[in-house]
């Protein structure tokens, strides 16, 4: 049935204006973290170091992309009363598959991701995209939507991660940039100190808040009326 509809309407280019918007929207106007305020828990928990933020972003990208496509393929078969359970099963299975494949073949990465596996399953952005987009759209747009949202999630995580690691530990990706804090070399010799507040979770919330502030100051249509 769906194939007859597809051939009746003119085939839409993968990079049409509508499809491009699927990717660009979540980066700014409809960012999952700063506008929809989803996935905050993982943004707080794992942005102490930039590396963690990158690993988490890559894992979410994979799970969201594969999950959105799977849900989209099954969308005409999934009974609506159990659709949330079906979505949950898809996320959970994908995460288990990723975790097991990583453990068998890239053990070092698996040790990095291991902590975040649970966080991926509970990431509201993924379930949110399944429910709001993949359940009602074809696989190709669903893949684009997943990519856009994962990127919207990733850039916030990376921004917060850079900020927290640089000011909290004086390093990026584990490389010390300002000298050694315990040996008192580099900037630390001049009396500079790392901000320990940065490595505590509340600071992530404050940084996300500042990003939201800047974003709304720039993009006034996001401001809700009184």
């Amino acid at each position, binding site marked *: 049935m769906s194939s007859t509809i597809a051939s009746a309407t003119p085939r839409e280019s993968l990079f049409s204006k509508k499809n491009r918007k699927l990717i660009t929207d979540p980066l700014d106007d409809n960012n999952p973290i700063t506008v929809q305020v989803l996935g905050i828990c993982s943004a707080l*928990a794992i942005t102490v170091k930039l590396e963690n933020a990158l690993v988490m972003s890559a894992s979410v990208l994979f799970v969201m992309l594969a999950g959105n496509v799977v849900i989209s393929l099954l969308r005409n078969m999934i*009974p609506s009363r159990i659709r949330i359970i079906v979505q949950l*099963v898809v996320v959970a*299975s994908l995460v288990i598959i990723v975790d097991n494949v990583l453990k068998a073949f890239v*053990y070092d990465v698996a040790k990095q991701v291991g902590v975040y596996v649970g966080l991926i399953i509970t990431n509201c952005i993924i379930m949110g995209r399944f429910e709001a987009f993949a359940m009602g759209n074809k696989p190709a747009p669903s893949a684009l939507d997943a990519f856009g949202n994962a990127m919207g999630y990733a850039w916030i995580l990376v921004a917060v991660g850079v900020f927290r690691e640089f000011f909290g530990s004086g390093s990026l990706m584990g490389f010390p940039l300002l000298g050694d804090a315990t040996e008192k070399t580099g900037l630390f010799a001049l009396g500079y100190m790392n901000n320990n507040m940065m490595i505590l979770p509340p600071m992530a919330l404050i940084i996300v808040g500042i990003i939201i502030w800047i974003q709304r100051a720039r993009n006034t249509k996001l401001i809700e009326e009184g």
Partner: protein
Amino acid sequence: MAIDKNSNGATFTFAIVMVVVVGTILALLYSSLKPYQDVNVEREKKQNILAAMNVKVKRDEAPALYDELVKDTKVLDANGRPTEGDAFTLDVMKQYRDEKARVISAEEMKYPLYIGEKDGSPLYIVPMVGTGLWGPIWGYVAVASDGRTVVGSTFDHKGETPGLGAEINTKFFSDQFEGKQIADEQGKFTSIKVYKGGTQTTSPRGVDGISGGTITSDGVDEMMRRTLAIYYPYLSNDGGQSSNSGGTTDRSTAFHNHNATEEQP
């Protein structure tokens, strides 16, 4: 499309098919990947034992070097006396959990010990397990032949907070244990205290804990105290006996000099 996908029958059928399909896929995947995963776990264990001896090695090369450097293994009972058993396959983590759940008593616990050799000196590598904030933590501590000087250590964890408690697996933390003493001058067991606040780093029996990771640091402290107390009688006696005739001091000074040169660059 004669079937209503929202009918009870379709809902049940979908659920059943989904569970069977997903279950089969995951079971097949798990059983086909398990051998690869086990190899990684075994290599990592050997790599950790070597890391406690301050031997840096890639995981792929760990088994060969392990066979070369680890000369002997022993299993101790709860009173620190040698007993029967295979040290490498002894699952200390499972035993620790069983003891906590009162499946086995503390008296029944067995303690594996790895005896390695580096630069002509024997090293005693003690595996240990404990509890952090979110889950298990574990580590290996290598003690020199005098039975009380820590030569190296390595720690790891299952799910401590990244950037906080999870830092126990960094070199920055484990390097602090090098050269510390687990007993005082009279030979009385003291363990190594993990201090909060970082003012005690110069103490021969104390190291600096991790800021923001207090409960994990306390876990390391408890784990070392509990485990090393069992091994200490064996380590202090055997270390003295196996290298009598004045060889002890020669060897240990040679060993320390070697460490010092390693730290220089």
